[in-house]
């Protein structure tokens, strides 16, 4: 009987010849990813009585959620992190304004195929797109990892999703992801490793959307096999593509297999207040006016999302009384978007640029919502009160849907504007 990706990679790391779902293992991850949680992580590290980091080169810290700080409490927390780093060298530290952790630790080559990555953020799963095992954990557990380098983990069962067909040009990877969340529901992948097969047609930007969204179905980790597309991205951004890929066996055993014909995917929107409330956009019924549109986050703030927004908004203008916020996922992406003219196009169209980082997604700053307001976002989380007032509503959709909505002032099917040319 063949083995799934999760079974193989966890067996190898734990030193056991063979594992099955439900087995308890002690794992030594290759990469420890933390954000602002590193302030408390560093305090716990000291409370435990640890002095030295056993594997400092594995640690990546990124200040991305409050970037830059917008309160004294946040600033003090950042100060705690920097003071810790004066005394402890780590693999990578990215200060405010550099971008989101999941993007930066891929761009700097720390995360890559065949690695085990744990992070004190639920969207750590994003970089499973590189063929790495990437799982979110507790920040107290992260402190334990700083001190000992090891963590307990159960071997997950796996779900396999097979793609076929060709995605229509008016649909995007984000629409595919929302469609999958609609199929799985909020707990449909709980504790599972989700493997996407035949995903070769997707770019690295798109693969990361597909993996990122699975956090909202409870997935532990995901997988897309590294290939020439992965290699090209790695060479462009990290300078090299040296790795030992771990691949699932063709005869591996899955808890569930889902067949998805991409040619049937159409623009989707997840309606308040759950990412799994995905519906085809034409089923929304009435016109839904928007107050804020946001292209950003670790889900939908990459170069291709910004490029799409620029294409849609070229020569046009944001509707009256609507904010269109652009949050590039990293400084590299911002610089590329500037060189390609996308940022100028978007600014000319009335968009607002925020520093690379999580932006308003977590309701901290840079676009908080008032009671009664509606936001359509290329992020993934639309929980009640997430971006500010509990009386605001968040819809999540593709970057194209967001950009179209910014022009019209209500949630707009991209096919409507494509018809108009």
């Amino acid at each position, binding site marked *: 009987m063949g083995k799934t990706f999760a079974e193989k990679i966890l067996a190898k790391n734990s030193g056991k010849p063979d594992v099955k779902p439900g087995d*308890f293992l002690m794992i030594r991850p290759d990469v420890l990813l933390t954000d*602002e949680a590193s302030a*408390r992580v560093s305090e*716990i590290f000291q*409370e*435990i*009585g*640890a002095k030295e980091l056993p594997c400092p080169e594995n640690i990546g810290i990124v200040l991305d*959620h*409050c970037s830059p700080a917008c*309160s004294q*409490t*946040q600033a003090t*927390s950042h100060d705690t992190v920097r003071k810790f780093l004066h005394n402890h060298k780590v693999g990578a530290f990215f200060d405010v304004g550099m971008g989101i952790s999941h993007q930066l630790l891929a761009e700097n080559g720390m995360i890559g195929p065949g690695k085990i990555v744990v992070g*004190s*953020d*639920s969207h750590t799963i994003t970089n499973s797109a590189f063929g790495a095992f990437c799982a*979110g*954990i*507790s*920040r*107290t*557990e992260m*402190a*334990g990892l700083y*001190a*000992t380098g090891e963590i*307990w983990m159960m071997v997950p069962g796996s779900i396999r999703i097979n793609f076929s067909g060709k995605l229509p040009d008016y649909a995007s990877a984000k629409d595919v992801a929302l469609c999958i969340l609609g199929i799985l529901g*909020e*707990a449909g992948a*709980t*504790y599972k490793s989700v493997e996407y097969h035949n995903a070769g047609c997707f770019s690295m930007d798109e693969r990361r959307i597909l993996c990122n969204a699975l956090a*909202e179905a*409870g997935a*532990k980790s995901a997988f897309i096999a590294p290939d020439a597309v992965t290699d090209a991205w790695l060479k462009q951004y990290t300078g090299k593509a040296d790795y030992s890929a771990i691949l699932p066996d063709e005869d591996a055993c899955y808890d569930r297999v889902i067949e998805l014909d991409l040619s049937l995917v159409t623009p989707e929107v997840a309606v308040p207040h*759950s990412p799994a409330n995905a519906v085809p956009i034409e089923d929304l019924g009435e016109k839904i006016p928007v107050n804020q549109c946001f292209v950003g986050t670790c889900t939908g703030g990459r170069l291709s999302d910004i490029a799409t927004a620029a294409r849609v908004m070229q020569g046009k203008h944001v509707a009256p009384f609507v904010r269109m916020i652009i949050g590039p996922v990293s400084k590299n992406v911002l610089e590329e978007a500037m060189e390609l003219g996308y940022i100028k196009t978007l600014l000319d169209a009335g968009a607002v640029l925020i520093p690379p980082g999580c932006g308003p997604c*977590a*309701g*901290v700053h840079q676009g*908080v919502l008032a009671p009664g307001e509606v936001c359509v976002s290329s992020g993934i*989380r639309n*929980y*009640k*009160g*997430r*971006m*500010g007032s*509990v009386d605001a509503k968040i819809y999540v959709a593709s970057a194209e849907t967001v950009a179209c909505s910014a022009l019209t002032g209500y949630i707009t099917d991209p096919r409507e504007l494509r018809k108009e040319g």
Partner: protein
Amino acid sequence: MEQKHLVTVWKLGNNINTDLLYPSKYLYESQEPAVLASHVLEPIYPDFQRMITPGDFVVAGENFGCGSSREQAVTALKYAGCGGIIAKSYSRIFFRNCIAHGISAIVCPEAVDAVEEGDKICVDGENGKIYVGDQVYTFSGFGDYVGSILKSGGLIPFLHKRMKNC
């Protein structure tokens, strides 16, 4: 039969996410226990901290604690006085946060179905039993390693002991 220690049940539904348990807007502000306790479940139960008696249990449906990995979703419950949690199932990071903070995240779907908000129950963690009226429901333990973390009171005391013994 010896007197059992009864606690009141606060019943929540399915898919209670961590933004409901502890809203994002407070996440990067004061981490004082009293502040955390004051905001727990605010979007759906604005006065939860005042309503709960220390030791009361939260009883929830499927996928409790889904969404963001914030550990304040657990610590806010703890500081508000929540004595423990029984759910049909948990989101995995929330479960890990419970263990890390010494909270037994009990899985017992039958007990969840059997109780209503305000019911009095007795939870015998040592022997894996939940008493609801004259019914008894059993739940599984956590395994040796995770059980040791819980017995130590959480990951910090567990690792502190290990560091001292090294």
